[in-house]
């Protein structure tokens, strides 16, 4: 199966296509939006609590921030946090899981002890600790992503390790070994390709986790105040009691987009899984 064929089957998968379509749409929104609608999302020069009208297509919030502009910037930054979280988690998880699984022995025990400890610490607590230590005024989106991945990687690392452990006993790996290949070469040539699908699916799922996690941290007020994200929009809505006052335009569109983002990522993940897994098992 070459890359073109792969893409062809992938794009013939309904779930993947729907998910991909939604993400593409949101990406377009987040990049074209600010160009076509150049309004500062933090500017408070507008009348507060304006419902949607010709001037403010999605209205304004209590401080007079333009909701449509907040959303354009919010999607982009939320996606950024998500992708970054996915990347960090995957990278740490793969490195730890691979080393642990291939090398075994003492190193494996130390690494697994570490993952167990990190797994035991409640994520939110860790986040609060780190962010209050650094001070959230100094915090940046990269830090948010890092904090989220710190709580996410142990699960992934353990999954990788257990897959490596079973792959290691496969005949073709033994055959590479007895041809004199060292662990590094085996890891890259024989093991990693087998983890590709699983890693890709996990990556998409961790993007999702990053986006949702950012919302959670934002609602707790633990994310940088000067960067707009979907979580931040909901945070502003929450602290201004928009829910109670029925100012729906300040939270419904952002909330919907957030859910849509989540669902489309899930669709993409299951789509990839559907397309590749039976094939890999059959081979």
């Amino acid at each position, binding site marked *: 199966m070459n890359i073109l064929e792969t893409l062809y089957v992938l794009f013939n998968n309904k779930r993947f296509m729907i998910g991909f379509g939604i993400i593409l749409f949101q990406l377009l929104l987040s990049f074209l939006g600010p160009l076509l609608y150049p309004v500062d999302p933090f500017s408070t020069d507008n009348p507060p609590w304006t419902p949607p009208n010709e001037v403010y297509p999605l209205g304004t919030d209590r401080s007079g921030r333009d909701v449509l502009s907040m959303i354009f910037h919010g999607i982009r930054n939320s996606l950024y946090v998500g992708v970054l979280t996915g990347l960090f988690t995957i990278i740490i998880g793969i490195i730890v899981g691979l080393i642990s699984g291939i090398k075994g022995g003492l190193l494996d025990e130390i690494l697994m002890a570490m993952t167990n400890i990190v797994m035991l610490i409640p994520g939110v607590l860790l986040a609060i600790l780190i962010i209050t230590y650094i001070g959230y005024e100094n915090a940046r989106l990269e830090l948010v992503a890092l904090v989220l991945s710190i709580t996410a990687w142990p699960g992934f690392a353990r999954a990788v390790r257990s897959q490596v452990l079973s792959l290691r006993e496969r005949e073709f*790996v033994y055959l590479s070994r007895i041809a004199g290949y060292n662990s590094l070469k085996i890891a890259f040539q024989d093991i990693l390709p*087998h983890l590709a699908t699983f890693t890709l699916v996990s990556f998409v799922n961790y993007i999702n986790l990053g986006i949702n996690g950012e919302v959670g941290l934002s609602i707790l007020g633990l994310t940088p105040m000067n960067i707009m994200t979907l979580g931040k929009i909901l945070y502003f809505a929450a602290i201004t009691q928009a829910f109670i006052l029925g100012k729906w335009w300040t939270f419904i569109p952002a909330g919907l987009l957030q859910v849509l983002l989540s669902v489309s990522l899930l669709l993409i993940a299951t789509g990839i899984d559907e397309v590749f897994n039976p094939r890999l098992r059959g081979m």
Partner: protein
Amino acid sequence: MSCVLLETKNLTKIFESGFLRKVYIKAVDNVDIALKEAEVVSLAGQSGSGKTTLAKMILRILEPTSGEIIFQGKNIWRDLKGLKDLKWYWRNVHIIFQNPFANFNPFYKVDRTLRQALELIGIDPDSGEGKKLMREAVEVVGLRPDETLGKYPHQLSGGQLQRIMIARAWIVRPKLLLADEPVSMLDVSTRGKILELFLKLRDEQKTTVLFITHDFGLAYVVSDRIMIMYKGKIIEEGDPEEVFFNPKHEYTKELIESVPTLYRRWKFDL
């Protein structure tokens, strides 16, 4: 009398499985065998008797629970250190695994396994010599290079894959070849040619072949010596005629009676 190439002493492997309550399986139980230079020895026995486990320990990829394996005077689990020693060992002791599909990494063309063999014996697979050897090896096992080289494993049949593994062994030409059910997927009409190859390796290269099979007929026809394995133990050993037509052990007798015969018909009663 030719000299001993490899011997095992009190070789034992116990597998531990089960999660809450541990179960111990004695897959190989106190096995002493000696393999001489240039002989085909069959290791025959039913499924689960421990044949593959024994082979994996000899190949030095599965650590024994206890016991020793001595190859040319070296205790392979104690005296081999570092990749250089191991490469030396694997150049001398190689294997054909049981399940032809599992021998191949589905992400690579089948050529890879042959290229690995060339690298192991120090020949650049991309050199003229390497390419020539690769084609030759494929032809030796009765395959056409243009129909098999450059293909992915899932594009070939079990029998074809099995023959490519034999081609790999032919390139490496080890002193000891562990052949685990090497012809199980081949058609009756083509199997003979491949079996001949093992005998040729024995006669021309002085290769020792440990021929692992559950097919008593095959063991009888190809081997110089037979070992019958049962529940991890070698229960019978000797000349094929002796083992098969004058078996000592009850189990061997019983099994031999169940092997279907071509020229004789069984009798059943209601």
